[in-house]
C-alpha cells in the first residue's frame, strides 16, 4: 500500500473569512507491474462562479489545525445603519444561537473532550475534576477572561451536578455558556483588565471574533496590551492573518458595491459570448487585481486606479481582444505549492515572480498576470467586470457609473432622485448617443441639481460600453468622454476621459479620505467620529506616510479601536458575532 496525501491542505473560502480545510488521503493498492501515475484534481464552485479547479492562489502552504465549520445558519446582521451590525434583539437570531450551541456541543463531545482526557490522563479526576477544568477552560475563552465564583458555580458546577452522564453535562454546560450574555455580547467586558479588553477589541476589529489565539490570550493574561506600542505590535501580527485578509476582501467588495452587481447578464443577441463563464472569470480577474493592488503586503491603494498589470485568461482575451492576450507560457512555469509542515500558521500568497507567472493550475481557467495595455490600464476603472456591472444589458449607464464614483470613490452624498425613472430607451432615440440620451432625460432643472455632478463624472467612462469593451464610436458618432468634477473646495477639475479620471482618483485627497473612512467603518462597525473629531485626519496622515498601504492603515485603525476611550462613549460592539463559534472550536484545540 502506498499513501499519498494531496497537496491541498487548506482552502480559503472565497469572499469569506472562514477557512475550511480538507484532507484527502489517497490509498493506492500495490501492483506487481509498474505503478501508473496518479493525478488528482480538486474543484469547487465558488459563489457567483462556475466549477473550476481550485486555483493555486487559494491554497495556503501550511497545515492548519483541524477546524469547525458551523452548519447552523445564523441570520444576517441588521443593515439599517448602512452597514452590518447587530442592533436589535431578534427571536430568529436567538433560536439559531441555540442550534449553534447544540451543534458546537456535539463537536465538543466527539472531539474536544476525548482529546482533553487523553492529554490529561495522568491527572487526578476526583469529583469529575477533569470535566470541570475542561468546561472552565472553554468558558474562559468564550467569556474573554477568567470566571468569577458566581459564574463558575452556575455555568460549570450547577450544570455538571445535574447529571451523572458526562455527555449530557457537556451539552448542558455548552448550551448555557454559549447562550450567556458574556459570550453573545462582546461589549460586556468593563470588569476585565485593560489588556484583556484591548485583546477583545483587536479580535473583534480584525477577525470579527473573540481573542482565542494563544499569543493573544497570553498577551492579555500577562497584561502586555496596555500601551499603544504593545497594541500596535500585536495588531501588526494580526493583520497578516487570513481572517483579517478575508475581512479586507469583504470590505473591498462592499465598497465597490460588487455584492449588488453579482449577477451580470447582457442582451444575448447583442453580446452572445458574454456568458456566465466569462462573468465568473472577470470576477476572478478583478478579485486578483484587488488582492494584488490593495490586500497583499506592501501594496499601494493608488494602484487601484493605475495598476500596470491585469489578470487575464484565454476566455477574457477571446472576448476583449489583443489587449488582454495571455501570451505563450511554457508549461513548466505552472506554479505549484509545497506544504511546509513546520511553517508558520501565517502565509502569504505566493508572490508572482514575473509577468508571465501562472495563477491557477488548470489550462482552461488559468489566470496570467500580464502587462496592462491602454486603455485597460486604469485599474478597476477600466476593468470590464466593474464597467459591465455598472451598465444596462445593452447600453452603458453613465448615471450608474457617476453615482458610483461620487458615492463610493469620492465619498460624497447625493440627494436621492424624486422618483424612480425608467431610462429612455435607445430604440426610441436611435439618432442619439448614450451621452446625448442621458443629457436629454436629465436636463430638467430639478434633475440637474444632482445630475450635473453625476453625469459629468459618468461620461468620462463612456469609452467602455455595456460589456466594458473599449469603443471610440457609438453608432456613427464618436464617443465624447470629456467630463468634470467640482471638489469639496469648489474647484473644478476637467477630464478628457477615463485616464484623467483615474489619475485624479489616485491622487485625490477626497478619494483617499473616502477610502479611509470606509475602511474604519467596515472594520470597527462604528463611525470614526465617535472616536474623536481629529481621528480621521490623523489616519489620513499615516495612510499617506505609509505609502497608502492598507495593512498598515488597518493596524492604525485597530489601535484606535483597541485603546481605551477617555469618555467611554462608544462601545465597540453590541452584537453577537457569527465567527465566534468556529473560532472557539479551533482555538480550544490549540489551547489544550
Amino acid at each position, binding site marked *: 500500500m502506498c499513501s499519498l496525501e494531496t497537496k491541498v491542505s487548506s482552502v480559503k473560502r472565497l469572499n469569506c473569512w472562514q477557512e475550511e480545510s480538507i484532507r484527502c488521503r489517497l490509498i493506492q493498492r500495490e501492483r506487481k507491474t509498474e505503478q501508473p501515475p496518479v493525478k488528482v484534481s480538486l474543484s469547487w464552485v465558488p459563489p457567483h462562479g462556475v466549477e473550476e479547479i481550485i486555483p493555486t492562489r487559494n491554497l495556503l502552504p501550511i497545515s492548519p489545525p483541524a477546524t469547525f465549520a458551523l452548519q447552523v445558519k445564523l441570520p444576517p446582521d441588521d*443593515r439599517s445603519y448602512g452597514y452590518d451590525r447587530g442592533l436589535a434583539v431578534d427571536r430568529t437570531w436567538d433560536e439559531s444561537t441555540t442550534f449553534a450551541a447544540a451543534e458546537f456541543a456535539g463537536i465538543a463531545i466527539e472531539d474536544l473532550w476525548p482529546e482533553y482526557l487523553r492529554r490529561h490522563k495522568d491527572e487526578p479526576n476526583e469529583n469529575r475534576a477533569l470535566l470541570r477544568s475542561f468546561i472552565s477552560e472553554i468558558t474562559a475563552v468564550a467569556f474573554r477572561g477568567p470566571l468569577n465564583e458566581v459564574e463558575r458555580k452556575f455555568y460549570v458546577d450547577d450544570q455538571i451536578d445535574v447529571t451523572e452522564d458526562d455527555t449530557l453535562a457537556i451539552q448542558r454546560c455548552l448550551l448555557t455558556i454559549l447562550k450567556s450574555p458574556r459570550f453573545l455580547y462582546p461589549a460586556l467586558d468593563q470588569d476585565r483588565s485593560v489588556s484583556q479588553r484591548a485583546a477583545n477589541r483587536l479580535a473583534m476589529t480584525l477577525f470579527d471574533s473573540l481573542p482565542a489565539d494563544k499569543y493573544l490570550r497570553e498577551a492579555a493574561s500577562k497584561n502586555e496590551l496596555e500601551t499603544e506600542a504593545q497594541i500596535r505590535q500585536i495588531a501588526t501580527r494580526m493583520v497578516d492573518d487570513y481572517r483579517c485578509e478575508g475581512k479586507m476582501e469583504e470590505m473591498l467588495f462592499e465598497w465597490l458595491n460588487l455584492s449588488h452587481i453579482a449577477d451580470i447578464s447582457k442582451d444575448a443577441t447583442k453580446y452572445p459570448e458574454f456568458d456566465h463563464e466569462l462573468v465568473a472569470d472577470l470576477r476572478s480577474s478583478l478579485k486578483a487585481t484587488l488582492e494584488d493592488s490593495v490586500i497583499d503586503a506592501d501594496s499601494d491603494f493608488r494602484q487601484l486606479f493605475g495598476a500596470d498589470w491585469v489578470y487575464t485568461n484565454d476566455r477574457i482575451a477571446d472576448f476583449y481582444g489583443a489587449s488582454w492576450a495571455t501570451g505563450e507560457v511554457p508549461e513548466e512555469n505552472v506554479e505549484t505549492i509545497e506544504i511546509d509542515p513546520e511553517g508558520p500558521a501565517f502565509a502569504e500568497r505566493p508572490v508572482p515572480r514575473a509577468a508571465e507567472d501562472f495563477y491557477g493550475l488548470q489550462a482552461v481557467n488559468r489566470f496570467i498576470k500580464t502587462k496592462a495595455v491602454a486603455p485597460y490600464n486604469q485599474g478597476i476603472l477600466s476593468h470590464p467586470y466593474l464597467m459591465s456591472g455598472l451598465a444596462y444589458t445593452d447600453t452603458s449607464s453613465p448615471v450608474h457609473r457617476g453615482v458610483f464614483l461620487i458615492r463610493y470613490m469620492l465619498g460624497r452624498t447625493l440627494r436621492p432622485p424624486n422618483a424612480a425613472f425608467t431610462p429612455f430607451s435607445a430604440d426610441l432615440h436611435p439618432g442619439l448617443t448614450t451621452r446625448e440620451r442621458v443629457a436629454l432625460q436629465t436636463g430638467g432643472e430639478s434633475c440637474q441639481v444632482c445630475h450635473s455632478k453625476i453625469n459629468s463624472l459618468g461620461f468620462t467612462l463612456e469609452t467602455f460600453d455595456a460589456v466594458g469593451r473599449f469603443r471610440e464610436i457609438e453608432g456613427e458618432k464618436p464617443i465624447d468622454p470629456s467630463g468634470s468634477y467640482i471638489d469639496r473646495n469648489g474647484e473644478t477639475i476637467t477630464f478628457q476621459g477615463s485616464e484623467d479620471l483615474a489619475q485624479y482618483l489616485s491622487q485625490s485627497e477626497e478619494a483617499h479620505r473616502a477610502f479611509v473612512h470606509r475602511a474604519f467603518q467596515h472594520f470597527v462597525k462604528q463611525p470614526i467620529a465617535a472616536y474623536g473629531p481629529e481621528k480621521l485626519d490623523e489616519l489620513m496622515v499615516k495612510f499617506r506616510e505609509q505609502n497608502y498601504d492598507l495593512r498598515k492603515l488597518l493596524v492604525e485603525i485597530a489601535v484606535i479601536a483597541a485603546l481605551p476611550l477617555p469618555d467611554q462613549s462608544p462601545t465597540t460592539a453590541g452584537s453577537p458575532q457569527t465567527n465566534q463559534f468556529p473560532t472557539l472550536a479551533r482555538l480550544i484545540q490549540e489551547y489544550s
Partner: protein
Amino acid sequence: MGLPSLAADSTTVENKKQRLIFVFSPNGVIPDHFWPEATGSEFDFKRILKPLEPFRNQTISMKGICNLIKGDGDGHMRGIGCLLTGIELFPGDIQGGSDTPAGWSMGISVDQYLKNQFQAVPEKQTRFGSLEFGVMVPDRADTWTRLSYGGPNQPMAPIDDPYQMFDKLYGQQKNRQMLASVLDGLQDDYRRLSSMISSEDRRMLEEHLEMTRQLEKDLKVELSAGKEGENEASQAVGHAVPTLPANIEEQNDNMPLLTKMQIDLLVNGFAADFARIATFQITNSVGQPRMNWLGIDEGHHTLSHDPDDNEESYEKLIKINTWYCEQVAYLAKRLSETPEPGSDGSMLDHTTIVWTNELGKGNTHTRMNIPFVMVGGGLGWKTGLSYDFKKVSHNRLLMSFCEAMGHPVESFGNPDFCGGGALTGLT
C-alpha cells in the same frame, strides 16, 4: 355506519380551525394579464391567474386595494415594509434607488399580531404559533428582505433553507427542553451584567432579558404541545415527518425544487398543527431570480423596469408571474388534498392563502392595486368572487383579516388609513 357524523355537525364556526398564509412574490405584476375583467362570480382567469382556475370556487380576487403609506424609503421598501404592517418605516440608512433612505417598519405585521392573539387563547395555541418561510432570500438583513415584523423595529428573518426549517419543526426538541431548564439562571446573569454597560447597550440587554422571559413562556407552550401533538399529528395525518430530497443547494436554478420542498414542509407543519399562521416569502422585494427553467436569463427585477412596449420583457414578466401563481396553486392543491385533521373537508377549507406583492406594477413602482388574491376557506369569506374596491387603503384589509380570524381591531397600523374600518360584505 352510513349515518352522518355527529362530530362533523358539531363543528361550529366557533371552534373551527382557521389558518392564514401570506405568500409574497416581488416586483409587481402585469395588471392587464392579472386582474379579471369582470367583478362578481362570473369572472375570468387571465393568463397569470390561470393556474388558480381549478380553485375558482375558492378564489377571491381583490382589485383596488392600495398601499397608501407615505414617508421614508423607496417604493420597494415601503412596498414590502408596510405591506403587512400598514405603517411607515423608521428613518434609517438603507438607501434605495430613489426617495429618502429608511430603516425598519414602525409596527407589527398582521401575521405576527394574529400569532400573538392565537397563542394567548388556549384552544388556538400551537407549538410555534407562526412559521416564517422563505425561498432564496438573500443573506442580508435590510428593508427589502423582510416582510414580517414582530413589532416596531423587529424584522423577522424568514427561514429559506428547507433543511433548517425541517430541523426547527422536527428536531431540536431535546435542546429546547434543556434550554428551558437553564433560562432562569441565564436571566440572573443578564440582570447582573446589565449594570456594567452603557445605556444603549443596556437597553439591548434588557430587551434580550424580556425576550428570554417571553421565550420561557413560549417554550412551556411548545413543549407541552409537543407531547400531545406528536400522537395527534401522526394519527391524523398518517405521515408525521416528511422526507426531503438530500443536498439541494440554495442556488438560483434549484428554486423550483426549493419552493416545492418549502411548500411541502408548510403543509406538513400545518397538518401537524405546529402553527396556524405563516408567511411564505419568495425571494425579496427587488428579487432577482433568473428563471432559466422558463427560458428567461435576466433577473426578475431588472426585467420589471422595462417599459410596457418592450414586448419581449413584457411577455417574460407574464411568464414569471404565472410561475409564482403556479406555486400558489401547488400550495392550494396540497392543502386541498390533505384531509382536515379531526374534521370534515380538506385543509384548504380551513386555510386561506393570501397571495400578495409589494407593488401593483414593476415599472411604475405604483402601490395602487396591490395584488391580493386569496384561495381557501380559512377566513370564512364568500369565495368564487372578483372584487374591485376602486381605491381603499390596504390597512382596512389588514383589519378585515384580524376580524375574520376572530380578533377584530379598532385600527391596524397607522390609524389615519383605517377610516371606514374593516371591509364589509365579505362574509
